[in-house]
């Protein structure tokens, strides 16, 4: 097993995640795409941890914990957005427009 294969998988996951963040209109799906990006990072960390020392895996655990918290906050925000505007379409959330 080569490190490159993991890195390529991770890069593919990252790109899919970025695509999802940029393109999806549904807020929940955007959140899910962010999770995907985070997991791409996790793969990277674990892969490097396997080849270069245990520290990467510890970081991966931290990222998973933080991602859980982030999803909790993110879902709460989306829930509130829904309550206020009966929609979770991100394109319509442009009150900050200059």
């Amino acid at each position, binding site marked *: 097993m080569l490190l490159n294969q993991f890195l390529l998988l991770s890069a593919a996951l990252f790109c899919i995640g970025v695509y999802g963040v940029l393109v999806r209109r549904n807020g929940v799906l955007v959140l899910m795409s962010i999770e995907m990006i985070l997991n791409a990072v996790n793969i990277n960390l674990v892969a490097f941890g396997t080849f270069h020392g245990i520290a990467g895996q510890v970081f991966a655990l931290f990222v998973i914990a933080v991602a859980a918290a982030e999803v909790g906050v993110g879902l709460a925000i989306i829930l509130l957005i829904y309550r206020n505007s009966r929609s979770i379409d*991100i394109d319509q959330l442009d009150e900050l427009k*200059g």
Partner: protein
Amino acid sequence: MDWFLTHAWIIPALPALGFVLILLFGKRFLGPTRAHWIGVPLIAVAFVLSICTGVAWIQHTNDPHGGPLADVQEECSRTVQATGSEEPAEHADEGPTEGHAAARGRSVAQEDHGTEATTTQEGGEEHAEAEKHHDTQPVVRCVSWFDTGDHSFTIGTLVDGQAVMLLFVVTLISLLVHLYSTDYVNGDRRYTHYYAFLSLFTSSMLFFVLAENTLQMMVGWELVGVCSFALIGHWWEEKPNSDAALKAFITNRVGDVGLIVGVIVLFFGAGQSFSIIDINIGANEGLMNHTVLLVASCCLITAVMSKSGQFVLHTWLPDAMAGPTPVSALIHAATMVVAGIYMVGRLYPVFFEGLAIGGSSINLLALVGGVTAVFGALLAFVQKDIKKVLAYSTVSQLGFMVTALGVGAWTAAMFHLFTHAMFKACLFLGAGSLSHASHHSFNMVDDMGGLRRVMPRTYWTYLIGTLALAGIIPFAGFWSKDEILAGTGSANEGVGNYHFALVMLLIGAFCTAAYMTRTIWYAFYNGEYKGHGHPHESGPVITWPLIVLAALTCVIWLVNIPTKFFFDWRPPESFTLKFEHYVEPVGPFFPGSSDNFTHAEFNGWIAALSLLVAGGGLLAGYLFYWKRALKPLENLAEKSRLAAFFKNILVNKYYFDWLYTDVIVHAVKKPIAAAAYWFNQKVLDGVVDGAGKTAVASGRFVYDKIDQGVIDGVVNGTAVVATESGGELRRTQTGRVQQYAALFFAAAAILAGIFVLVIG
């Protein structure tokens, strides 16, 4: 007793304290009618202290110790400072009668002259005299007033016989005037103000009298002027009164210029010293240039002319009658007008040397005094106002004093000042009493008459004052006037031979007797009372001062009994010439026998002539008014054109007021004022207007170009740029999260690319 001599400053301090207290608390705590509760006790204490100082001075003179400068504090006099360090032993051979300080004081002059040999002989002769008549020792105390550079100006007291004499006169007259005023000015609307200034007036004069240096003298001199201004204009609501006050003040300013110049000349002449002792020693010992002394004395005579109402600048004095009568008494007897006489007496060596009085027959002082004595007296004949008669009488009598100083009869001048203060105060207060009775009118011709029956006390005291003023034996005026006449040295041994002065004074004496008789006739005889209401004798508060002054007038001559009377009768020597002995200074600061300064003795012929002249004046008045015996002289002005011409001159007061007001003031007013107006309008206003216009134009330019164009342009430009750029940049702010994220990732990708390219 020396405590009184060294602490003489308390005497002027007391009325000054009274002034402050009355001003601060008089009205509020005592009410508008009780300001005298403060003024009278303080002046009474000052009077008692003055008497104590006098007694102390007599003891001090009787019990001499050391030389003439032994009691001069070292800081006060440069002469004492300069000689203080000298070795006193080298003059020890000068004799035991004189102390070291005397030897020191005199040695300066001797060494400077380089004539030690001759002066030692003279010194020896003086010692013989000195055993009889010891040098006086003025008591000088001073403190530092202010320092400029290496100069220390002092302020202090110079107590000698002359100062003590005037302390007594000023406090006595002031005390009587204070008492008299409690009735006379009672109910006045500015009672408190009146008493405050009365106190300040007294205090200023005492300050002036005790002045230790000429600078301090000048301060006192000006203070006296200010107070007289305030009191003459006491009833300023009426225009003539405030005019009179202004006239008194402004006329005095003219003379003050002379005083300032004279004092400055003497300051440099005496080696940069204001000290009176220094100046007198410098002048008397010949250390000062004669020209300097001549210039200084001429300048100071101008000051005397204005302050002491001498001819040419006398015009303010009669107008000063606008003030309350007690103030007139104070001005004429004690505080204001004698200041000039006192100043000449104080700086006598300056005049004696400067005008070369010794051995001469005419000088400026004698001329001014002689002319004033006659011309002032003549004016008194045409006055209807009783106070104006007395005012011109004062002018004339001050002329007597100035003449006496001019002819070298110093003691006679001071003695006349002394006696004149008593009887002139008596006459003025008497005139006040008369006006009190006749509804505040002073017009003796139209509003008085026949008052001798209703006002016996005023009548008798006024009569005594008149006889004293006329110079009838044995009242005070005779003795002092006779001393002056003898002092002219015209008929006997004197300082000089002043025939002109003698003639003028005799004419003056005749006129004095005659116009005073006229006053007595109009006020007390002349048929029935002509004024309003019923006249009545004044209350005891008014009459008692009159009685005291009249009594003093009768006895005061005893202080200076001549050494011999008519027919060579000589009174016991222990009674004679006390005034001369205690008042006249002897020492290096006063002309002595070596300067040809002598004392004229009583001369039977002169005395008889003076009595004859005075009696002639009285008789002429008696014949003219009572007996109507001089019919050809009555209504002379209507009969003779020449007499009318002279009367017109007198009524118009020699046209001096016209000269000052219409000629001088008008001449100044018209062209100079017009020129000043033109200058003001064209030049000054032009400059000011030009400056204003330039300022406006430049202001407009700055506003238009710089403020509006540059500064506002910069500020507005900044704002415009900010707005424009903000408007452009806001398009990037779409509010879409995904767009931001896209940018974010794009930027991250670019950074990563750079990272890889640069590092990898």
